């Protein structure tokens, strides 16, 4: 209660002229409350964070075995070290772009009717979810920074020397956009709940496609040799025109120098365009969805 009072006093100077800031203040309050909520389940959170590191160990063993069995020094331009570095970097990217529970949570709130709270209150659902997700991520990084730091330290020999400043900047920009892209794609997916009562099957299909085409499974350069049936177009090129690879492959490829120069710049702009497209799709889905929604379930 004293906390509520303190927040209030800080805001008492706000007048109508500060309207844009009022939106920011709501957002910050939502953020702090979401952080408090995340911290309630800190035990589960810490365990979940640590478990994420198990798959990487199996990947290192797998690719060590693959390279031991072949005499080739590299596969699709990736040496064994490159591959391990790639997987570690996609882990970082996925830490930004993956949105566990977002689409299923939206679909559930539509199905059980709890989304109506956001229709009744003068607050925007998508902004609210974004605040909640930023809070979620911040708490996650706070805990994950330690195991991440340890693993990267132990695996430092797999990495090429630190890239130049422009590459690091491009990497950071791509990470930030991968967060937004992941968020708005999953949010739009969750809003299918307005049209279909049961969307878990669709989400599973999306997850599979995402896993394959984002580069989470293997570096997408490996698709370069696979023809699509269209003359001269490989699967890798098709994948490059889709938004998925920005959520895992692209930032890792930028860091490892697989994409550079004007190609990198163009890809960053394309990623920004995808973010905008997905924001619009999300807005439209919300707008259309809430108008046709029947609010079943009380």
């Amino acid at each position: 209660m004293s906390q509520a009072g303190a927040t209030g006093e800080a805001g008492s100077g706000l007048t109508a002229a500060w309207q844009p800031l009022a939106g920011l203040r709501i957002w910050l309050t939502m953020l702090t409350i979401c952080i408090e909520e995340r911290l309630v389940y800190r035990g589960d959170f810490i365990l979940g964070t640590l478990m994420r590191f198990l798959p990487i160990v199996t990947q290192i063993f797998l690719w060590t075995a693959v390279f031991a069995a072949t005499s080739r020094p590299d596969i699709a331009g990736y040496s064994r070290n490159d591959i391990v570095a790639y997987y570690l970097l996609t882990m970082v990217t996925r830490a930004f772009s993956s949105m566990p529970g977002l689409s299923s949570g939206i679909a559930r709130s539509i199905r059980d009717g709890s989304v109506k709270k956001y229709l009744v209150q003068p607050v925007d659902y998508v902004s609210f979810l974004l605040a909640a997700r930023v809070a979620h991520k911040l708490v996650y990084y706070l805990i994950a920074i330690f195991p991440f730091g340890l693993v990267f330290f132990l695996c430092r020999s797999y990495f090429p020397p630190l890239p130049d400043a422009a590459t690091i900047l491009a990497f950071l920009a791509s990470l930030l956009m991968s967060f937004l892209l992941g968020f708005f794609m999953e949010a739009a997916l969750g809003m299918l709940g307005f049209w279909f009562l049961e969307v878990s099957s669709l989400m599973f299909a999306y997850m599979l496609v995402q896993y394959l085409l984002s580069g989470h499974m293997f570096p997408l350069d490996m698709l370069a040799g696979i023809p699509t049936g269209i003359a001269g177009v490989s699967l890798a090129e098709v994948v490059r025109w889709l938004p998925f690879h920005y959520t895992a492959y692209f930032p890792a490829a930028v860091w490892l120098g697989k994409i550079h120069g004007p190609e990198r710049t163009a890809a960053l702009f394309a990623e920004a365009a995808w973010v905008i497209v997905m924001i619009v799709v999300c807005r439209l889905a919300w707008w259309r969805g809430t108008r046709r929604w029947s609010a079943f379930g009380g």
Partner: protein
Amino acid sequence: MSAAKDPVIRVAGLAKDYRVFDKPEGLLASIRGIFHRSSRVVEALRGVDLEVGRGEFVALLGPNGAGKTTFLKLLSGIITPSRGTAHVLGHVPWERADDFRRRFALVMGQRNQLWWDLPAAESFRLHQEIYRIDPARFARTRDELVDMLGVRKLILQPVRELSLGERMKLELVAALLHEPEVLFLDEPTIGLDVVAQHTIHEFLRHVQRERQVTVILTTHYMKDVAALCERVVVITHGDILYDGSLVEIVDRFTTHKIVTLDLDDAAAARHLERLGYPCEIRGPQAILRIDRARIADVLPEVLRGGGVRDVSVEDVPLEEIVAELFRSAPARPTAASPATAEATP
């Protein structure tokens, strides 16, 4: 009753059809479902007209699936109607203007706007920001509301640790922090014990009087209605069947009074049975249903036989009147039942 002074809520020809889909399961079926789904139309609300004046406390009654909740959802802008118009505080609810949303509140029993894992005080703080409540005013309103409901000690405890009744009280506080002018309550006392029900009655009555809040309440408990509402609107099959005062409903829809007699012995019971009035003997008690117009003639006749220790004359219980009223509603001509619409998960 229909022409209210200073109407806060004006509804004309409001109708809502639901399209109900038959939903198959599984991945393949889901994908097939994108292209084709079988559906049927259910009329949940069929052209309702209503006006509610400022400060009125209206009970919305009706059997399950009658369209009460649909009506409240339309008035609070959660869903858009199929036909008709509605204005609440001068706004069309389903346009969901922020200016409108800051001036009303909706409480649906057992559906929490409170954060499950956090103390209610945190949810209140969020409401302060969302509704842009002046801090001093916020603190004053909050303290007043929690004291009135006696829940001050509970607001720092995680909501998940509270009982249903405690949660409901805190839901009400959350809903009233921004001092709404219009309040929609959907079964606010459902599942609560008698004490909690009573507290909530007192609270709502006080809030409504002090602040001139316009309240629409749906409930299945006649205690709520008797304690709070002067005006009753009965909805069945998506139509308004009755709109008037609570007193009038009793006058209009009851033909009988209930006479209860405490009897001395079996001889008195036999005397009663000989008189031939509809009579039920339960141990030492006899319960008679007597035509209201004839009560003055019948009572002396009944008492003349002697052996009666005590007598009481009461109206038919409100539950019974309302149940009779629900049953008397003409069945809707369409094949689809509105109950299907609300029962769909």
